[in-house]
Every structure is written in C-alpha cells, then in structure tokens.
C-alpha cells in the first residue's frame, strides 16, 4: 500500500469518529468503564495474592515437643517433619534459646525473680513454614499424630478468611470482567454498524469501483482502535489516582494494616508498565474486534 493511501485511510478513520460523535462517545465510555473495572479487579487480585503470599511466608506452625523426649526421639521427629511435602523449612527452637529470649524481654526485677528458678519450664519447639497456606490445616492435623508432639499452634483461622476472600473475589471479578467485555463488544459493534450505515452509499460505490474489502474495512478498524487507545489512556490515569489513593491509606497509617501484611503492597510505579501495556492492548483489541464483527456482514455487496 502507498503512503498516500495509508494517510487517506487513517484520515477516514478520524472522520468516522467525528461523524458519529454520539455513538463513538458511547463506545468510549463503555470501554473506559470496562477497562477500569477489569483493571481494578486485576490489581485487587494481584494485591490480595501479594498480601496472602506475605502471610504465607510469615505464618509458622509451632510444634511443641513433649517433655522428656530424648535427642534421638527429637532427631526422628525432625526427619518426619521434613518429609511432609507441604513443609518448607523446619527450625528448632530449643528450650534454652526460648529461655534466654524470654529473659531478654523481662525487666530487671522479673529477671531477678526467675534467675534462680532451678528448672526451665519452657518446652522445645519446632517452627515450620509451609509452601501452601491453603492446606495448612491438613498439615497440622498430620503433625499432631506424630510421637512426642504435645500440640501445635497455627494461624489457620486467619489464613482461611483471606483465602475465602480471595476465592470469592476471583469468581465475582471474573464474572464482571466477562460481562463487561461482552457488553463492550456489543456496543462497539453497534457503533460501527451505525457508522457503516451512515456511509453505506460510499461503501456501495467503493464496491462498484473495485475497492477490496480490507480497504473498506481499515477506516472502521482504525476508528475502533483510536477509541480503544483513548479509553485505555483515560483508564490508566483514573486507575493511577484510585490505586495511589488506596495505597497511601495502607502505607501512611501503619499499625493495623502492617499486621495484615498490607505494607507489602506494590506501588503503582512497579505496576505501571504491565498495567499500561495491558490497557492499551485490551482497549485496541476490543475496539478492533468490535468493529470487525459488524463490518464483516455489511460488506457483502
């Protein structure tokens, strides 16, 4: 194709937008909303995963060993713990270490009081980290059946809540995203239909003088892409404001949030590249596919 033709086709694409201002605007809006919803859903999912990941790293199962276990009993237990597939790391926290640590945290008076206690009342413990927090419950149940295990402690309740939130959120987000993509495609293909209808005489003549279908389609295609890219640009800006607003809430007011692992959130700058690329690709793609759906049918002359 010649440069002059390319220029002509792009020009026609822009003209189409202007001729169908209202419908183009409708397409733009629905695409903007769709991209925003999709984007925010994805960012929330990413953040949730990140937070849960942080909790996974931190959350330990504490295995309390029965008093009176011998060194060889301990070694056997440690081996068994290692052999559980979901167990990531195993570290021994001896009663001496626990004692020393406890003393460190005490005031002088308390230390004086305990210094002469002849027996260390604390148990030996193992601290385990897990690979998958979702099956932590099963893991602890298994450990409790081992010999010389007094009891276990684990933050399973909290993990369960987070995991449930993530699961429900994923389902809802997926449904919303799917619905919006379908709606956008329908609206955009209708816009194009109106645009094609407005120019049907022109298209009819183009067919008679031997224009190829692709030549006739390109301006509509470009029209759709421009709308898609414009919507992506706006969506990116809005997402940035929204995300940073939320991010600042979690980061400025530490306290409660840091317990939940919220300080681990990505900053928007970390996400800028993937988010903008996905928006542009999704916007242009939905715009282009939406226009193709309706131009195909109208070109059979």
């Amino acid at each position, binding site marked *: 194709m010649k440069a002059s*033709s390319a220029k002509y086709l792009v020009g026609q694409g822009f003209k189409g937008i202007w001729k169908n201002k209202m419908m183009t605007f409708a397409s733009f809006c629905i695409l903007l909303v769709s991209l925003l919803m999709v984007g925010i859903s994805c960012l929330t999912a990413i953040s949730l995963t990140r937070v849960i990941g942080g909790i996974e790293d931190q959350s330990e199962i504490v295995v309390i060993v029965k008093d009176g276990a011998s060194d060889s009993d301990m070694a056997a237990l440690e081996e068994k713990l290692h052999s559980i597939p979901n167990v990531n790391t195993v570290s021994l926290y001896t009663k001496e270490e626990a004692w020393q640590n406890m003393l460190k945290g005490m005031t002088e008076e308390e230390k004086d009081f305990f210094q002469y206690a002849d027996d260390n009342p604390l148990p030996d413990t193992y601290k385990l980290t897990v690979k998958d927090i979702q099956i932590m419950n099963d893991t602890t149940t298994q450990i409790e059946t081992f010999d010389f295990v007094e009891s276990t402690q684990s933050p399973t309740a909290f993990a369960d809540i987070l995991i449930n939130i993530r699961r429900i959120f994923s389902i809802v987000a997926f449904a919303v995203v799917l619905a919006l993509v379908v709606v956008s495609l329908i609206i955009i293909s209708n816009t194009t239909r109106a645009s094609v209808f407005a120019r049907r*005489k022109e298209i*009819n*003549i*183009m067919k008679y*003088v*031997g224009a*190829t279908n692709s030549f006739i389609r390109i301006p509509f295609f470009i029209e759709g892409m421009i709308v898609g890219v414009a919507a992506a640009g706006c969506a990116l800006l809005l997402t940035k404001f929204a995300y940073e607003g939320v991010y600042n809430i979690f980061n400025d007011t530490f306290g409660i949030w840091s317990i939940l692992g919220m300080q681990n959130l990505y900053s928007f700058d970390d996400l800028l590249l993937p988010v903008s690329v996905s928006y542009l690709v999704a916007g242009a793609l939905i715009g282009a596919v939406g226009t193709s759906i309706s131009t195909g049918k109208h070109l059979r002359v």
Partner: protein
Amino acid sequence: MVEFKDVSVTYSSSGVDALNNVNLKINDGDFAFVVGPSGAGKSTLIKLVLKEIDATSGTVLVNGFNLKKLRRGKIPALRRTIGVVFQDFRLIPTMTVYENVAFVLRVIDAPAKYIRSRVPYVISLVGLSKKAKCYPTELSGGEQQRVALARALVNDPKLIIADEPTGNIDPELSYEIVELLKGINECGTTILMVTHEHDLVRYFGGRIININKGSIAFDEVIGGSNESK
C-alpha cells in the same frame, strides 16, 4: 469483451426467471443499447456482468474473467476493468465533484501524483472543470450524471455499463450524455447502455439488443436518424 453462453437467472427469493438461455457477445470497442419493457431482465444482465449476482446456469465472460470461476476475493480485480453509471447518479453528497472522482482512484490505491493529473483531465472531458469544487446538490441532474460519467471513466476501464443513465434527467440533456458516451466509445472503450428512451435509440442508431421476458427478442444494428441528416 462480454460474452453470455446459455445464461439463465432465476431469483431464488421470488422464483422469477429473469433471464432464459441468453446468448450474447459484445466485442471490444462496441457500443450497444439494451432496450425492453420493464421487468424484462435488463438490470439483471448488468448485475451479472458486475458479478453482483451469479448466473443460475450458463457461462458469463467479462474482460477475460470467467465469472463462474471467479472467487470473491478477485471481484475487485474484475470491477476495476469496468466503469458503472446508474440512473440515480450515486454521487457522495459530502464530497465535491473533484473528490467524488478522485475517490475512485484512491480506493484502488493509485499514486497520489497520478490522481492529481488524471482527475482534472477527466473532469474536463465531461465539461465540468469550472464546477470541480461544487457539491453534487449544487449541480443540475445532467451535470450530476456527467460527474458520474467522469467517475466511471477515471480509471480508464475497458467497459462502461450504464443502467438507464438518462432516466432521471431532462430529455434534451439525455442527448448530451449519449454524445459523451459515444465520444468515449470512439477512444476504444466498450459501452453497454440500458435505456427506455426509444427516441434516443432511434436518433443514434447502432447495435440494439431488445430483451423481452428474459430472452433476446432482437439483436441488430440499425442506422440512426442523426446520420441521415
């Protein structure tokens, strides 16, 4: 060159047999009038040549293309060898005369430089150089049809087909249009013109193809009254 061999057309939607076993040959450089009563099948013939419809049976050859074997994707190649003029002009109202003509060359991806020299030339051929910047609504019916003619001419087709090109304009101006077509024909372009106006046919003479109820009733060359003057 246009050739029909045993061509029949039945419209499946209405069940009408629009053409029955038509055999016809129009050689390069010919000028032929196609006449006949309404509903005879004249427009059907034109649609076949443009491959807007396909023959139900028989073979249609146009400018070296066998239309039965022509794939959809090759239809533009066929149509680039044909110029079309319609009764209702079919100009684009939002484009000037110049743009209406230049548009044809743009859609077939012609070089910009060629467009700049070819379009004014063709517009001058139909005598509208002074109106090149006007919009179709600012022109008379005869002038609009001349623009349509310029548009049909601009990519230098081998064949021009005109379906009642004088149907919507004053009878006096009809002669002007046919004169223009005759002039184009003298430069070597084949012309196939459908008309209802018997006066026009009698005046110019030439090859007359009369279609009646889907069959060729009459296909002969007659002398025109203008030549006897």
